[in-house]
């Protein structure tokens, strides 16, 4: 029994680590999509940021500079997406797909050109990474039954970006629901005409939303390459940008439900390792590929409308052209 609980604890621990990039991206997608701009390119921004962060950290030896570079690159791509969609009213989905494919290739091209390691960046030492942080009192509390174990194992010992990720959830909630910017952002995603007639620029508002998305994806990518790991590896995002998008839809474009969806996907991932080979009556051992495919299958089931109804912001995906 104790072993099972311990195993569960470790799973939760892993869940937090796995869910971190998802949470960052989901919040990023929330800003963009709530303002009416579809963002398929969470994946691409995250990947580009991962590469930029790892490269910069390898060259400068500083994790913080790496973070800065990651954010900068992600913001540039976000503005590119905005430029195509908002200013030139291009197809938002095509733009997102274009960016993803572009980044997929460019990160490896530059990686090989600069580091000649087949697309990987050089591993960085502890100084150039975000390393686990022991929260105050964790060691002292380690022996306290239940609470101590929870605190020292589960909550303490993650790196800074993990804590930041979960902090962005209340922050996003506050910005979206408690600030003027958030009010206008939500309005422009539902009825841009209402915003326009109130005398506010729809374009400027959407650009700022897309900018926020860029910043957050920058964090996500940096986490992947120099916090969770010690280098950039090609395609290291592995579809997590799309899963984050699915989690966002699952969470009906709201911060806390989206975060819970990310945790759920993260949990499934963590459990997948443990369930591999477990024998189930009739079917036999559960194939690992089934567990791996589960988040994607779940996304499809959700989108099919079998789990409640996912109602997108009303004006999403439609470039704003003044009526009349």
């Amino acid at each position, binding site marked *: 029994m104790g072993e099972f609980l311990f195993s569960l604890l470790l799973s939760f621990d892993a869940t937090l680590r796995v869910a971190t990039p998802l949470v960052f991206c989901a919040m990023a997608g929330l800003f963009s999509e709530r303002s009416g701009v579809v963002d398929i390119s969470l994946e691409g921004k995250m990947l580009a940021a991962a590469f930029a962060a790892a490269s910069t950290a390898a060259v400068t030896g500083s994790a913080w500079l790496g973070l800065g570079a990651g954010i900068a690159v992600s913001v540039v791509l976000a503005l590119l997406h905005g430029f195509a969609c908002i200013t030139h009213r291009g197809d938002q989905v095509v733009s997102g797909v274009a960016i993803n494919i572009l980044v997929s290739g460019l990160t490896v091209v530059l990686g090989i050109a600069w580091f000649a390691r087949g697309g990987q960046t050089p591993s960085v030492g502890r100084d150039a990474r975000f390393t686990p942080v022991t929260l105050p009192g964790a060691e002292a509390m380690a022996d306290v039954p239940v609470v101590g174990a929870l605190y020292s194992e589960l909550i303490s010992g993650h790196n800074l970006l993990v804590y930041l990720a979960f902090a962005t959830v209340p922050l996003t909630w506050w910005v979206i629901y408690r*600030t003027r910017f958030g009010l206008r952002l939500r309005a422009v995603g539902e009825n841009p005409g*209402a915003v326009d007639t109130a*005398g506010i620029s729809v374009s400027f508002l959407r650009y700022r939303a897309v900018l926020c998305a860029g910043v957050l994806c920058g964090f996500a990518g940096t986490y992947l390459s120099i916090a969770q790991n010690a280098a950039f590896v090609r395609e290291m995002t592995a579809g997590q940008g799309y899963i984050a998008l699915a989690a966002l839809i699952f969470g009906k474009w709201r911060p806390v439900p989206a975060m819970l969806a990310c945790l759920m996907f993260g949990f499934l991932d963590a459990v997948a390792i443990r369930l591999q080979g477990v024998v189930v009556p009739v079917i036999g051992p559960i194939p690992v590929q089934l567990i791996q495919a589960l988040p994607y299958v779940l996304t499809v089931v959700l989108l099919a409308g079998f789990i409640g109804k996912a109602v997108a912001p009303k004006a999403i995906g439609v470039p704003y052209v003044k009526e*009349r």
Partner: protein
Amino acid sequence: MAEPPSGRPAAGHNTASPDAAPPAIELRHIDKAFGTVQANKDVCLTVRPGTIHGIIGENGAGKSTLMSILYGFYEADSGEILIGGKPVSIRSSRDAIAAGIGMVHQHFMLVDTMSVVENIMLGAESGAILTSSIEKARAELQRLERDYGLDVDPDALAGDLPVGQQQRVEILKALYRGAAILILDEPTGVLTPQETDQLFRILDSLRRQGVTVVLITHKLREIMAVTDNVSVMRGGEMVADRVTAQTSKEELAELMVGRKVLLSVDKQAPKVGETILSVDDLSFVGKDGVARVDHVSFTVRAGEIVGIAGVSGNGQSELLEVLSGIRPVTSGGFDLLGERFSSARPLDPSTMRAMHAAHVPEDRLRSGLVRTFAAEESAILGYHNDPLYNAGPVLKGVAIRQDCAHKMADFDVRPQAPALKTANFSGGNQQKIVLARELSRGPRLLLVGQPTRGVDIGAIEFIHKNLVAMRDAGSAVLLVSVELDEIMSLADRILVMFEGRIVGELPAADANERLLGLMMANAATEEEARHKSPGLPGATVVTPE
């Protein structure tokens, strides 16, 4: 912007202004053209402060364009705007709001998922952080509600409110921004009679508080009920100003519709045959629960043209769409060539065509044609499965092209180029392509909506001749049009629709503009109107209302 010529009296300038206060709004010689269409021509308007001023006119008369200029959606090509006696430059809604102008649009600009308070605050928040803004807004909202009698639950979601209350939110939005001038664009189109009365009480209260109200409408009854002054627009021009108390519905109707030259079509008496279409207590209820077609019954027989007159938006469009199989029946039904269609047995457009009925849609670019297709491809829309055009699985390109060429010759489509993209034809020629397609098969029932909308004079005559020819050949024709001239010259029998119901039916010989105008604005029943129009058999002396 041009200087107004001095010393020229024009409609819109008050000749006797006892008030010392400058007019709340003054528009001088506003011109606005969209391409070749002159939407506003030398329009002048003067609105006195603290009054309710009505602007009336038919669809397309230019009222909405004028108000859009005032609210900053468009900029006038020439002319001046003065607010409170001072010239202002209005280039965006922001400028308009700054000048104290608020607008309640015909189609509400509300965010359905946000609360009333949030909607009202949007764009006029008092700070970057919302919590204090909301408190301030809520307090101000309570004050406004008290002062003007506008009762709305501040925390209700805008999308959940009934339409009448949504409109109040729009009004509160304007007042919250300190609007001294409130423009309402066709506000009662979506209201029930009770909600309309409530609105009028609110407008009255606003007037007493010193707010200037401009009411844009086509409904005569409302003008008479609530306005102090009224200006009439027709064909892009301001044709008259009146003090409401000194005019009448009849005079306004006459000014609205004007004395246009009737395009009379030479037609013989109809040779009426069997009943082709019999509509029986038909209703269509939209997603919002409003009955767009409300228990309608009528018949159309072979060899006659039945015209449905009415201001657009009173259910005629939906009626045509139900009868052509595009929309479903909610209750009741109709008999087409002996086959009954109802909610239990829906009609679909391909069945309709298989039964030799045809449909010329009201909006040819939206429904009737594909802009990016070549003309010959648009010319087979709806008939693409016909064996005439198909050899087994393959479309017969040559046959299609030849067929299109014939149609183009028969219907005088210019240029006679079947391969030319549909979008490159003028409006009139596009319409002729649609007509050629629907008429050339000799349908037994022809449903036609706005056949000459956006069509030049020469083509109008041609189209009218063809419709009469169909009728003479034995087709039953149901014609929907907002152009009274068209209805009166083409129809043998005229029905008038208002708010989804048939409110009048009369033979074309008995109809005239005045009478139909009143019925269209639901200002009178046909009985009443008959009594009021001298010269008709059985007329009695009129007692003014």
